[in-house]
């Protein structure tokens, strides 16, 4: 019984939490954080049990209000959506445990309650996007999550409102494009339901309207996903946002756009349409490849760790786009697996950046010295784990993403893309070992020693921040070993029909 309603449950938990947080906080302000944790924990449990249920007994379709599609809104829990909701909720849970202390430090007291409410709305939006089977409903959730994100970014440092405003403009334009695309599609097919449109499209054949609609939707989602060259909003937003926001946006936020593209291209329009009739998959692949290289090179020249990680995200999101664009089983498996893997890596690294900011008050790479390895040994060790994963050293998760994507490029005989993927891992090595060198080997000069003495007393960050960091660092290895389990158990069932 509960399982039949499962698709709707997760977004509703977050929506409900988002609404009651301000109400409860009127009486008891400190409760906000605990509601956040409880809601995230609950939805993590629900979404993991959803995965098990879906693998056992197949997809679940849920009609909102009992109205069957195409009239009503439909939620679909298939292996892809079940897996991705489990991934984002699990990562969100770990990040939010970490967030408690750092939100107290970085965000003024009177802003914390709305801040937490926004986090809930953001997660509600993300889960909704993944679970919905309706194009317009997807737009609604896209805007919910984006609007929440603008707020989460704007709560940061002095420059953050500007960054948020820029993001708002870009994001709204993106949303507009998507909506326009949906409009065209609706006019043409008379439906908003994904499954329905999938049936209708082949009957109508290839018409310019369909191609324009598809292009607009991909363009809109491409902005949300920060697909090169539509990534302009991302570096500032990540850098100036509060640490807690950036560590929840980076692993989750842009993946939602990638998911949208994956769903539309390969599940609704179908592989044949997007590769042969209108080769938008190839365009996606090449833009992603350009983004991979561009992001990696710009990451090398950054002096601020969060900004470096932001450019690195542009590069990594390219891996996902590239995998989707390859439109073959290995590519898709690599892309979906990388959504998980990159989520873990980036979350780990942003938590490390958060820990540095918490202790040092900054995360300027130039000012890192080897005193860090003494004062924060576990945080720096987690950084190394994250760095190794980003470079793709086995047995970390990064290696396996690289492996599946490499197999995918070879299957398509796209040698240049193979070079891009592998070259990028070397560029990753450049910018990560640059930091490793500093935090392990750069001698501390005497002036800094004096300044840092007060920090020495409390050496590491609090357990509530350290444990999530270490859990993620450990997960980078554990999920590396478990990758076959995930690929065989879940991802092979994720593949669109006909593969």
């Amino acid at each position, binding site marked *: 019984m509960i399982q039949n309603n499962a698709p709707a449950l997760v977004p509703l938990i977050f929506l409900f939490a988002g609404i009651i947080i301000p109400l409860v906080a009127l009486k008891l302000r400190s409760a906000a954080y605990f509601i956040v944790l409880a809601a995230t924990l609950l939805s993590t449990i629900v979404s993991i049990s959803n995965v098990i249920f879906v693998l056992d007994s197949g997809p679940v379709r849920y009609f909102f209000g009992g109205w069957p599609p195409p009239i009503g809104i439909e939620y679909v829990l298939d292996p892809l959506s079940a897996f991705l909701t489990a991934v984002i909720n699990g990562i969100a849970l770990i990040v939010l445990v970490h967030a408690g202390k750092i939100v107290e430090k970085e965000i003024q007291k009177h802003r914390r309650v709305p801040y937490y409410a926004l986090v809930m709305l953001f997660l509600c939006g993300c889960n909704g996007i993944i679970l919905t089977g309706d194009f317009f409903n997807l737009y609604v959730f896209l805007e919910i999550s984006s609007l929440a994100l603008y707020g989460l970014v704007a709560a940061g440092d002095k420059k953050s409102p500007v960054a948020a405003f820029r993001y708002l403009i870009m994001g709204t334009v993106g949303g507009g494009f998507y909506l326009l695309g949906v409009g065209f599609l609706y006019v043409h097919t008379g439906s908003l339901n994904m499954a329905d449109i999938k049936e209708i499209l082949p009957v109508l054949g290839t018409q310019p309207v369909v191609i324009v609609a598809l292009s607009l939707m991909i363009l809109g989602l491409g902005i949300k996903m920060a697909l090169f060259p539509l990534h302009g909003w991302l570096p500032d937003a990540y850098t100036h946002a509060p640490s807690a926001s950036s560590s929840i946006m980076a692993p989750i936020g842009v993946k939602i756009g990638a998911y949208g593209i994956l769903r539309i291209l390969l599940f609704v329009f179908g592989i044949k349409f997007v590769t042969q009739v209108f080769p938008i998959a190839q365009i996606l692949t090449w833009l992603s490849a350009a983004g991979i290289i561009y992001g990696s090179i710009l990451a090398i020249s950054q002096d601020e760790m969060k900004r470096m990680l932001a450019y690195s995200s542009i590069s990594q999101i390219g891996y996902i786009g590239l995998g989707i664009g390859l439109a073959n089983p290995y590519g898709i498996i690599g892309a979906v697996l990388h959504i998980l893997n990159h989520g873990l890596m980036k979350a780990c690294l942003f938590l490390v950046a958060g820990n540095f900011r918490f202790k040092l008050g900054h995360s300027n790479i130039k000012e890192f010295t080897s005193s860090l390895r003494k004062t924060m040994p576990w945080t720096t060790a987690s950084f190394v784990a994250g760095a*190794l994963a980003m*470079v*793709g*050293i*086995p*047995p970390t998760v990064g*290696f*396996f993403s*690289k*492996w*599946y994507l*490499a*197999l995918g490029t*070879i*299957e398509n005989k796209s040698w240049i893309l*193979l070079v891009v993927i*592998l*070259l990028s*891992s*070397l560029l990753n*090595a450049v910018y990560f*070992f640059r930091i490793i*060198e500093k935090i392990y*080997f750069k001698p501390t000069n005497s002036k800094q020693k004096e300044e840092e003495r007060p920090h020495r007393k409390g050496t590491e960050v609090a357990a509530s921040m350290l444990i999530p960091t270490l859990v993620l660092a450990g997960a980078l290895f554990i999920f590396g*070993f478990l*990758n*076959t389990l995930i*690929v*065989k158990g879940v991802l092979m069932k994720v593949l669109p029909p006909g593969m």
Partner: protein
Amino acid sequence: MNISDIYTSAVPLYAVLVSLAAVPLILLSAKRQNLREFWTIAAGVVKFCLVLTLLPGALENRVATVCLFEITPNIQLALKADAVGVFFAIVASGLWIITSIYSIGYMRGLGEHKQTRYFSYFAVCLSSTLGIAFAANLVTFILFYEILTIATYPLVIHKETKEAIYAGRKYLAYTLTAGVFLIAAAAWTYQLNGNLDFVPGGLLQGLVMTAGTAVPLFFLFIVGVGVKASIMPLHSWLPTAMAAPTPVSALLHAVAVVKAGVFGIIRVSMFIFGPTVMAEFGLNRILIVFAVITILVGSLLAFKQDNLKKRLAYSTVAHLSYIVLGVGIMSSTALIGSLLHIAFHATMKITLFFCAGAIYVHLHKENISEMDGIGKAMPWTLGAFTVASIGLAGIPPVNGFISKWYLGAGAADSGQFLLIVVLVISGIFNAGYFSPIVYRAFFRKGQEQERQKEAKSAMVIPLVLTACLSVVFGIFPNSFFSFFRLAVQAVTGIFGGPFP
């Protein structure tokens, strides 16, 4: 093809994991030096014994295998102790014990910092080296190969000087790039074949391939493993990495890391491509060309190094290509020579590095031009040095002669007489760049009166031991570990049929 008898046994896994298990113990006893070093030695001895228990099986063509779990779909994380693997494992784990004893003398003698880090990463390196030796397929191989790359980095930059950090960067730039090539090659092979197991005689044998596939694929592989094997022009990280402490240079840059590279070349040429495919596309000629260039240029470059360790490094570069050359000749005799040279070059070169380290710790001299008359102060050390350099020049009764003999005989077998000339010239070069050192040490008078004492016994005993081993193996190549029989066994598996 003789089918090997496969049985399941976890011993290869234990052999890999022993030194990894020692790491937490080493870290926990950081404050108590003797206990910490005890763990290293204990792990070394246990590891060596475990490897030795695999020896009788490998000699009788019974292969111990262990499959852990699927690391990626259709590919197991699997270890197998075949003759080639056991051969390499014996060399690496045996010399680790000796190097550990030497390390204690060296690190304490110099009062080096961060010795705990040093010993723990050394243990990780040895785990991954044995993993490389026992890897049953390419993915397992890559896994350990990359771990070795990373675990060596903290050892290379150990001194944390500008020079060391530069060496570390260069090392990573070369080896990580190589790793990427290897991954590309493995992925491509998987797409061709759907399987990545190491099969004696070649995995790709019988697969329809064009030269357009085989040659680029082979190049990817050779760059992938050739960096660690320091084939020219991929060699230049090795001399730079001499910034590391001498025991690191001794074990890793003369035995474990670089031999992992040549071992990789053997695995790729004989177990992935196989002699038939190699011959079909003339891939072995590629190996021969690069090997000959490396042997000659490497030896020439060794001449102009005044820094002793750098001279040894270039000598290593040249000698590694002896092994590559033996693979390229592709006769069973030459391959036996190659395998023997893995072991024998190891005992000789490690002796030389030990000597260089002892001289550095005891007399603080790194440059050959300052070494006048040191033979009087350190007769044992320089005696061992002399023995090992005789061996490297290929003069009997030291073991370098035997491996070189088989390489030459193999070249003659396959009618490539020009290669014998190369071997002879290189022998002369070896004599040329080692004899000035011996001459200075023993026959020139030092400017100041040297201290009339040998270095610490923790350093002298290991180096005398390895020098003695070099001689013993030179006279009885089958003593202790049946290296010769093991090599024959391995080669029989690859070329099929009984050894002529």
